[in-house]
């Protein structure tokens, strides 16, 4: 199943799922797991600012497969 998604994305030269980038010369040099973790960290900071009610809720990051690599890094930034 994942192989299929990878093939689609390589052929179309776009991102994962509904995510996208607008720079056609972007070849992934800015990407990587650590960069992704900084984006995830910023995502949660933005969310908590907009929805302060949710700050009191227990928070977890969960994932499968390579999500096991992606999940621990944002927590190391906080």
């Amino acid at each position, binding site marked *: *199943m*994942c192989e*299929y*998604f*990878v093939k*689609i*994305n390589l052929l179309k030269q776009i*991102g*994962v*799922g*509904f*995510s*996208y*980038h*607008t*720079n056609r010369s*972007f*070849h*992934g*040099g*800015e*990407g*990587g*797991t650590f*960069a*992704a973790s900084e*984006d*995830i960290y*910023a*995502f*949660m*900071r*933005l*969310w908590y*600012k*907009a*929805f*302060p*009610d*949710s700050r009191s*809720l*227990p*928070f*977890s*990051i*969960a*994932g*499968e*497969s*390579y*999500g*096991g*690599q*992606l*999940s621990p890094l944002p927590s190391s930034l906080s």
Partner: protein
Amino acid sequence: MIKIIWPAIVGTLATCLTLSSAAQTPLTEPTFDGFGGNPNIRTLTHESHPDHSLTIQAHGPKNPTIKSDAPSLSDICPGATSGYTGYLNHGDKHFYFAYFESRSKPAEDPLVLWLNGGPGCSSMTGLFMELGPCTVNEDGESARENPNSWISAANVFFLDQPVRYSNV
């Protein structure tokens, strides 16, 4: 199966505009200006993260402040609760996310950020085939409620990332 359902999902997500109702307690709405003249779409910023912004749009079934035309995802994704969809923006990268409130106690239940693996697997895999509010049917053209979804007991984000995975 994937070949058939994926265009269907993308198409229906983009065009779903029907409102329904349910008893849920949403989070308090943020008070931000509308974006691009559309009061349903808001872009949020944070002074500590000047390179990032978050563009969000509420979806039904229930939203107290923009109830009149907040689209619902429950028509295409039975079992969906209210929440938000949008993008985390970082330069020319735009990470799609979908957020669903808990079916139980959204104001008390845990907050979970779900990431599929790969690298290169969309977290929509998790949403539509694993732990999301609905599961795509075998016909590839419809979905059914997923009673075992994690949103039964938690508020869940499904975040599509990374934008480009070839150098991960």
